[in-house]
């Protein structure tokens, strides 16, 4: 079966490239699963989503993706993230800490949108690292 060529890029660096059997991402319309020979798609990703790349025997690649786009054409999948982090690179202790601080400031001020964003991002990072949130 054909494989997907996947590239995860952020403005500052290329985060990961390789081949995969399936890519699951979360767009603003909901989760989208891409398998080989998928029709061309261009979607807007949600803030603080988790990207899952299924690679068969090698296991899944999980990454926290903060905003950006997914574009699919001719079995090329590009994830353009404003910021992204591989699950294996996440510093769990720091992410937990960030989540707690963000939640504390949300409790103090319900209108604090910046803290909400931070909490979302921290949660995504923890989920990407395989932690329960």
């Amino acid at each position, binding site marked *: 079966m054909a494989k997907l060529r996947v590239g995860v890029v952020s403005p*500052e660096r290329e985060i990961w490239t390789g081949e995969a059997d399936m890519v699951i991402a979360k767009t603003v319309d909901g989760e989208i699963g891409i398998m080989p020979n998928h029709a061309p798609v261009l979607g807007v990703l949600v803030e603080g989503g988790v990207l899952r790349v299924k690679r068969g025997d090698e296991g899944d690649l999980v990454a926290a993706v903060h905003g950006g*786009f997914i574009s699919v054409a001719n079995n090329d999948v590009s994830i353009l993230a404003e910021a992204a982090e591989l699950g294996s690179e996440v510093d769990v202790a720091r992410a937990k800490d960030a989540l707690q601080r963000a939640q504390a400031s949300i409790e103090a001020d319900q209108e604090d949108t910046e803290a909400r964003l931070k909490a979302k991002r921290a949660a995504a990072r923890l989920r990407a690292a395989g932690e329960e949130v």
Partner: protein
Amino acid sequence: MGAQLRQLRRRIRSVKSTAKITRAQELIASSRIVKAQQRMQAAVPYEREITHAVSAVLSNTTNVDHPLTVAKEQPTSAGVLIVTSDRGFAGGYNANILREAEALKGHLVGRGLTVKPYVVGRKGLTWHRFRSREMFGEWDGFSDNPSYANAKEIADALIEAFKAEDGIDEIHVVYTGFVSMLTQNVVVKRILPLEVEEAETAPEGIPPYYEFEPTAGEVLDSLLPRYIESRIYNALLQSAASEHAARRRAMKSATDNANELIRVFTQQMNQARQAEITQEISEIVGGANALADAAAGKE
């Protein structure tokens, strides 16, 4: 010791310490060029993909009517983003940028537009302040090592001004493009209203028909600002690399000059010393002869 000799020694000492400084600056700049180039390289995949995505949307939607792509019929003002460096010691780097910016300004004024400068880098800021020109955006502190957050900040301000009623109708950017270690050119570009730059290798055949999530319009809404950010980030990165390259070159010629000066001064100093010794000897010999003559006269 003669006055001339002392003066030459002092000058040699001062030129030597200047040479040490410029040499150190040169080495620092050359190590930073490599890093700046790597950062430029690292940003290439994202730029390529986002350009690809924007052209995909634009080729799929027949009548694009996004505020960022539509030129106003009667433009009245233009924003000019000028990317300079924070520090000097970079030869003509900043002078070139500012000269081009002035030329662009003349051109825009000729078209009947008022020009609103947006300035990056301390050198550009002081240049504008000294001439008491009003600036509509000021950023500094990151010219040698810009991050994407910096580019985002600038892009946000520009896009906001562009969308505002009494804001700006066009945005131009003046920066230094990094061609190679030895060549950097000042680049003047219009970034808004948007003209998508095609990737260098044109996509072959008909572009695929895309589906959009949620809709083409909304994708474009969030895609275009990112594209502009990426263009500005690219301009900042190229400017940073060019700044280091310009500084390395300027510091190299300064070091060479200093070494040449030291050589000339050392020669002059040796000559002066030789002349002094010769004079001393001839004085002694003259004195001795006079004494001998006087003694001979007495006898």
